[in-house]
């Protein structure tokens, strides 16, 4: 039970961050012509920011089912690596159906917080998922119902919340480890190349992120292989 409470507590900042990000998603969905219940249903069943954003952009066109499948595959393939990574850290009791249930909640932030732990138990992980899920669904509901009430300047500011959270996850680790700083720096450099250079900038952002992240992580694994205790902690 203690473990569950610890998980709940660790999930609060993620939930708050999701509240603002999914608020923006709700507004975008409405502006594209979706009903509020459709936006909420999308958030309840997907729980992913980049994938949902790309998804509603595809949904407004008729019958692009293959495009939908391929875009979700590319944008979300990073979750496979995260799931694989976390599968190495869970306690021996975290097996079978529990993994198939809680695999649904593998998001960037939930993964990042969980992988900061030495061992991830079912109780901790289940606690960790509560507030992020509530925040994501509630934010979508609020954004789609009363989004237009907020002035643009506040909406703009809220858009940086999710990135602030990303920074808070990477920066402290990069401060401790020069290797991680260089690997993360390489990923940023590659990402900028995909954003600004001709030809490369034609590639969709979901795919670009995937390529940058894999190249930089391969570089890290070759040049700075981590010692056993590091990968566990």
């Amino acid at each position, binding site marked *: 039970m203690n473990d569950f409470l610890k998980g709940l507590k660790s999930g609060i900042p993620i939930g*708050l961050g999701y509240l603002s990000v999914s608020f923006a998603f709700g507004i975008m969905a409405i502006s594209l012509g979706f009903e509020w219940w459709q936006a909420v249903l999308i958030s309840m069943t997907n729980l992913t920011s980049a994938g949902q954003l790309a998804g509603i952009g595809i949904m407004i066109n008729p019958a692009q089912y293959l495009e939908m499948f391929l875009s979700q595959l590319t944008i*979300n393939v990073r979750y496979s690596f995260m799931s694989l990574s976390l599968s190495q850290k869970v306690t021996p009791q975290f097996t079978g159906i529990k993994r198939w249930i809680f695999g649904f909640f593998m998001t960037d932030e939930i993964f990042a917080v969980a992988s900061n732990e030495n061992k991830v138990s079912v109780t901790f992980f289940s606690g960790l998922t509560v507030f992020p899920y509530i925040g994501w669904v509630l934010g979508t509901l609020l954004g789609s119902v009363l989004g237009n009430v907020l002035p643009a300047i506040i909406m703009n500011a809220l858009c940086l919340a999710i990135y602030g959270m990303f920074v808070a996850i990477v920066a402290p680790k990069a401060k401790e480890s020069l290797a991680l700083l260089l690997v993360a720096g390489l990923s940023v450099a590659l990402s900028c190349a995909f954003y600004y250079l001709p030809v490369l900038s034609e590639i969709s952002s979901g795919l670009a992120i995937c390529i940058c992240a894999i190249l930089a992580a391969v570089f890290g694994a070759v040049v700075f292989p981590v010692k056993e205790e590091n990968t566990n902690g």
Partner: protein
Amino acid sequence: MDNKSFFIYLLIMAGSTYLIRAIPFGAMRKKIENKFIRSFLYYIPYTVLSAMTFPAALYATGNIYAAASGLFVAILLAIKGKGLTIVAVAACVTVFVVEIIMTYLI
């Protein structure tokens, strides 16, 4: 859009997203011993988040100076060991303040 095509889309979207996440988590029972793969898996979350943040975050608020200021404050506070919520809120407040200054005072 009619309800039928909405639900077909929803099924494809939610189904593919779920399977990508759950299959590696549910099916991988063994401990990976390979040092290269272990190192790769250690780095991947940080490289994903780094690539997602830069340079996209600079264009997330509609004002590149405000966004850059927000990110700068976020990095500073994160290095000082502040938690996720404080860093995220501080980044938003910075964007808000910089946008106010640029809109009304300059």
